[in-house]
Each structure stands twice: as structure tokens, then as C-alpha cells.
């Protein structure tokens, strides 16, 4: 006994000391957090985006805190994997008070019960909003099963960006806004060049991403559809849709005006255009500020080419929502109102990162007469643009579509076969029987 008692005593003491230390650590951690911003309410806001968005929200935060001095807004910026983080926050009950949501996943979020229905808030503050000033598709994006759990704040339409220098060098006139897909093909062929004749193409006429959202504009302008209007059945198995897909497929494999696998890897879309490797590229309004960053190159935008069914483009919206388990819903609502106010909207437009949801602010700020480009085309496109048919099954559908479009992009399947393979899979998902 006597022999053992000493080290025993020492080790017991050590354990006690360690436990006390860790307890103290926890305690001090708690107090320091409590002491933070004195008596101000902490409101958290989660969003994604590039550093330009971060800049926007920092300015918005300053505006908000100036107007409501009792609130401290914490920006929780997630540059990548936002959706995954948000889902984990939903499960653990730690999502932010104000949540930025995208239209594609909105129904899924609403169904999960994590978003507050904003109908009552809107009814109460009717005078604060002039919904007639909102772009017509915007509110529809966040209305699902008669609930409105988010309000749109910005969005984009897709146009064709082109590198003017490459057009000049090839001696080809710039596209005009009445051009057709046939004109587009002709230009793409003229602008595809192998300068050093080594068998490798150095400059591609165009590049269209083989994705559901990327091909949608083409499919629509050929008169095709992704889903039936009631969004309950797959509708791509039609002659028009297949013709649209075949047209794009041929640009890549028959005329080789688009880079095939491995020919232009590791480069993001805008970079392909800026470095002169690609002459024409469809892109959203969000690409404007990136393009603006490079002064050495001249570029412009044109409306998407016209197809047999007319002109078409995709419009997409981002929304702001309130977390249903938030303790500061009123403060969150004040923030949303600020973002949607004339002042907030003008701030968004002036950074040219996206189109403000209020038309008046968009025309006043997003359009900049000082620049050589005509930004108003994005706003014109907002009028005729369409929304992706989004359902609560978007995520599952997207994966199946991606699998098959991946094969099409690699040239291991053809449009007609692809559409036939997709049909039963998508219909099964839409009917709720899982993938």
C-alpha cells in the first residue's frame, strides 16, 4: 500500500488538475462569447458566391447595421459546397437566421420544413414591396404548394458572350441579335482554327456545356421541352428536342467546333473566352463582372440565336429565406426588406454581379452607359426568358441527367438513344418511386 500510495496520489492529482483545466477552458469560452458585442442581437446570414458577392454583402451589412444599431449581422460565407453545409445545418438545427437559397433546390428546402412561410410578413408589409416592379418569373421561382418561403433578390439570364478580337482577326462580322442557330453554326465553323497545322485545334468556335441547364435554352428554341408543363412527366423524347440535341452534338463531333474530351481541360468557361481559346460561349449575367476584370480583351454579348420556335433563354433566381427555427425572425425580415428596398437593389445592380430583382433598379444601375457592352440585353432577355422546370425531385433528376449527358458529351451515346434511356428513369423519379 505504502509503496503505491505516492504515485497514485500524484496521478489522481494530475487527473483532477486536467479535469479542472478543461472545465475552466469551457467556462472561459462561454463567458467570452457572452461578452462579445454588448447587448446587440447577433443575426446570422449564410450565402455563397465569389469574392465579389462577399464585397456586396459587406456593404449591405454596413447599411443594415447603420439603420438598425441594435443588431450585429454575422456574414457566414461559404464559397463552395454551400448546399451540403446548409443541409448539415438543417439537420443539426444550426442554420443561420437568414438563408440564401437557389431556385433549383427551393422546393426541397421548403418540404423539409426548415423555411418560414413569408406570406404573413408580406401581407403585413404590403406597402414595402411593389411586386409590379419585380421581374415576372421571379416570384414564381419561390412559390411552391401555395407557400412563399423565400423572396427573390437577384437573378440572371443567359446570353451569348463573344470575343471581338477573334472575330476581327478572322474577318467575320459580329453576330446581330436576329441570328439563327444556322448562323451560329456557320460562325462557329469559321472561327475554329488550327493555326500551326499540327492537327490540334488552337481556337474553337464555341463551347456549350453538356448539362441539363446548359442545353435548355437550345432545346426550348427548337420547340422542345424537358418536362411536360405540369412537371409530372419527362418530355424530352420528342423530335424537336432530339433535333436540338443533335444540333449541339454535331457542333462537337461532326464539325468539331467545340473542344472534345481532353482538348481544353482545366479552364473555366470565362477563361476559355478571355484567353482566346474559344470565340463564343453562352454565359449568365454573373459572368459580366469577371469579364470586366480583363481590360486587354474586347468582348460583347448577343441574344441567344433564334431557333425554329423563336428565341429562348434560361432565367434563374436566388432568394432569401428565414430559418423556421430562428429566434430573430423579425430582424431577419428587416434585413430581407432592406435588400429588396430601392437602396439595397441599387447596390446590387451597381456591382454588376447579377440582375436586381426590381426592374427599376436594374435599369438604373445594372445598365452602365460608360461600358462598351450593352447590358440592357440581359434585361431584355429577362422578359422572354424561361424558368427551368423545377420539382422537389430536382437533385435526383439532376444526377440521372448528368450521368446520361456525360455519355453524350464523351460521344459514347447519341441524342436519340440518350433520351430513350432517360425517359423511364426520370418518369420513375417524378412518380415518386425513387431512382
Amino acid at each position, binding site marked *: 500500500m505504502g509503496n503505491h500510495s505516492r504515485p497514485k496520489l500524484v496521478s489522481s492529482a494530475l487527473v483532477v488538475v486536467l479535469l479542472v483545466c478543461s472545465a475552466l477552458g469551457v467556462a472561459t469560452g462561454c463567458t467570452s462569447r457572452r461578452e462579445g458585442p454588448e447587448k446587440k442581437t447577433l443575426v446570422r446570414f449564410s450565402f455563397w458566391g465569389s469574392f465579389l458577392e462577399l464585397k456586396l454583402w459587406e456593404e449591405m451589412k454596413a447599411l443594415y447595421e447603420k439603420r438598425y444599431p441594435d443588431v450585429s449581422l454575422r456574414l457566414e460565407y461559404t464559397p463552395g459546397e454551400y448546399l451540403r453545409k446548409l443541409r448539415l445545418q*438543417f439537420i443539426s438545427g444550426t442554420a443561420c437566421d437568414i438563408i440564401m437559397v437557389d431556385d433549383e433546390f427551393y422546393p426541397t428546402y421548403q418540404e423539409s420544413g426548415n423555411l418560414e412561410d413569408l406570406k404573413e410578413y408580406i401581407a403585413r408589409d404590403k406597402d414595402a414591396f411593389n411586386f409590379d416592379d419585380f421581374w415576372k418569373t421571379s416570384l414564381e421561382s419561390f412559390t411552391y404548394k401555395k407557400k412563399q418561403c423565400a423572396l427573390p433578390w437577384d437573378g440572371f439570364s443567359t446570353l451569348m458572350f463573344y470575343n471581338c478580337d477573334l472575330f476581327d482577326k478572322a474577318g467575320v462580322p459580329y453576330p446581330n441579335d436576329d441570328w439563327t442557330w444556322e448562323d451560329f453554326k456557320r460562325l462557329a465553323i469559321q472561327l475554329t482554327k488550327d493555326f500551326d497545322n499540327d492537327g490540334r485545334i488552337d481556337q474553337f468556335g464555341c463551347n456549350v456545356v453538356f448539362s441539363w441547364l446548359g442545353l435548355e435554352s437550345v432545346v426550348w428554341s427548337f420547340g422542345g421541352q424537358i418536362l411536360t408543363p405540369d412537371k409530372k412527366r419527362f418530355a424530352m423524347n420528342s423530335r424537336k428536342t432530339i433535333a436540338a440535341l443533335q444540333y449541339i452534338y454535331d457542333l462537337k463531333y461532326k464539325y468539331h467546333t467545340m473542344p472534345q474530351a481532353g482538348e481544353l481541360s482545366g479552364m473555366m468557361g470565362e477563361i476559355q473566352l478571355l484567353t482566346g481559346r474559344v470565340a463564343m460561349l453562352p454565359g449568365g449575367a454573373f459572368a459580366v463582372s469577371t469579364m470586366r476584370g480583363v481590360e486587354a480583351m474586347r468582348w460583347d454579348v448577343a441574344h441567344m440565336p433564334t431557333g425554329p420556335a423563336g428565341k429562348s433563354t434560361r432565367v434563374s433566381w436566388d432568394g432569401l429565406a428565414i430559418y423556421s427555427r430562428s429566434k430573430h425572425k423579425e430582424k431577419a425580415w428587416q434585413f430581407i426588406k432592406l435588400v429588396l428596398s430601392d437602396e439595397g437593389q441599387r447596390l446590387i445592380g451597381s456591382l454588376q454581379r447579377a440582375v436586381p430583382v426590381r426592374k427599376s433598379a436594374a435599369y438604373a444601375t445594372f445598365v452602365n452607359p460608360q461600358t462598351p457592352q450593352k447590358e440592357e440585353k440581359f434585361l431584355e432577355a429577362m422578359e422572354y426568358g424561361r424558368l427551368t422546370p423545377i420539382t422537389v425531385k430536382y437533385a435526383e433528376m439532376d444526377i440521372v441527367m448528368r450521368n446520361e449527358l*456525360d455519355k453524350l458529351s464523351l460521344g459514347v451515346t447519341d441524342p436519340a438513344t440518350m433520351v430513350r434511356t432517360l425517359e423511364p428513369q426520370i418518369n420513375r423519379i417524378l412518380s415518386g418511386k425513387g431512382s
Partner: protein
Amino acid sequence: MTAIQSANVRRAFKRNLEGYLFASPCLVGFLILTLGAMLFSLFLSFAEWDAQSPLKEISFVGFNNYREMFFEDELFYKSLYNTAYYTFFSVPLRVTIALLLAVLLNQKVRGITVFRTIFYLPSIVVGAATAVVWSWILNPSYGILNLTLHKINLFLDKIYLGFINVPEPTWLESEFWSKPALIIMSVWGLGSSMLIYLAGLQGVPDHLYEVADLDGASSLRKFWNITVPMITPTIFFNLIVSVIGAFQVFTQVYVITVGHTGGPNNSTLVYVLYLYRKAFDELQMGYACALAWVLFVMILLFTMLILRSSALWVYYEGERR
């Protein structure tokens, strides 16, 4: 009787108490964070849950997930195939190359520690960073690997051997070459196995080599008849660790493949990536848990198989034969 017994128990408890106390952070951590999570995932594997609704919406579906996996899911088999392909090539390559490297680095040469450091360095670099570096090495248009291959082809042309054409694969953008690219990448990071071999090699007693020298054995013979048998326990350990690692490969594949989804055409969709996709893209947490348990059982079986086989080829000095 009982009084003595209970006194004994009390004394034993007292004696062990501090041991338990010291181990408690680990024990509590294991019980709550590991065992608890494991049991929950086992439960989820028989259920359906979208990973974002409240827990009360979990619905029990019996063996449905497992049935779907084995009888309906083509991608399950494709991901198994991809993982098997990866394991089958990367493990033997890693095990042998690491051994050969360790033998080289076991030589008594000046500045050998510098070489050891150089070859171990890749293992210190985070997996994601390694993958980003490799994505540029493997880039078909600008990568240093294809540039070298292209230069070789040009040289062959020059010396009138143009008919020999070294392929210039598109690596991660080709269905055929994407897996070999991953395997090449995996071999690069074998520093830790190499280090273990090195320790094993230094444990081989010198007197065995001296005896062999007296008998006039060549260095190849010494390697084959002394070194290899003596370090079979090390090879055995590395084999098991590599197989388990290969079954669970994820980070590099996730970072390096286009769109992080195991493309092109799912040719790099390894098992754990598929699991991840199911859980966090398709929001089928129940199915993902079922996948995880199947993987667990598979790794368990393989490890047991290797353990069993060890009696045939692993030599332990202390063991009586």
C-alpha cells in the same frame, strides 16, 4: 464470503479507477462519437431518410436498401468494379515499389537522410493538395506528363522511328485512362509504407548477411532468401493497410475528377465516392448507410482472408515452427 468478495471487487475497482479515468476521454469519445454513430448508421441502413428533414421522418423500410443495391443498382456494381480495379493494381504496385525504394534508401551512402526525406515528402502533403498538383501534371493539353510524351514522339519521328508512337492519353477525361491515372497518383504517395519497410529492413540482423557472404551468396540471393523472408511481417502489415486504404480511397478521386462526381461516365466512381454521392447529393442517407455497412463487411472479409493466409507466408522470428 460475500463480504470478502465485495471488498475485493471494491479494491479492484479502486485500483483500476484511475486507469479508467485516464482512458475516459478516449472511451467516452469512442462510445458516443464512434459506436453511437455506427449503431445509428446500422439502423439507418434499414430506413429511408433524406438527411435534412427532422429525425422523426425516418421511415423503416426493412431490407429494401440492400435488395435494391444487390439486384437493381448498376452503379453499385460499377463502383465495386472500379474499386476492385484500383485495388488490384495500386496495392501490388505500392507494396513492391515501396519495398524496392526502402531497400535503396537502406544503403549506407552519404546524404542518405536527404533522399529519405525527399521520398517521404509526398506523404506529408495533404491529399487534396496532392490531387490538385496531379490534376495539372495529368492535364492533357498543358500537363508536364503529356508534354514529355509529346516530346518523345517528336524525337522518335526525328530518328526515323515515327512508326513507334507513344500514346498521349487524355487521362482523367478518358474512360479508359482515368483509372490508370488514379493508380499512378496513388503510387506517388507511398512514403509511409516505405518508412515502415525501412524500419523492418533495419531490424534484419547483420549476422545473417555475414554468413551468406561467407557462403558467397550474390546480393540478389541475399535479398530473396534473407531480406524478404525476414521482413514478411512488415510486408504483411503494409499489405493489409494498403488494401484497406485502397477500398476506402476517396479524397484524391473526389478532388481530381471532373465535377467531383467520379466522371467521365462514372469511370472513376469508386465505392466511397458513390456512397458520398448517395448521401449528400441524392440525399438517400439510408441507402448510403447500407453501402457503408456492405463496405465494412467486405473489408472485414478481405482482411480476414489476408490474416488467414499469413500463416502460409509470414515468418515471425519468435514463433516456433
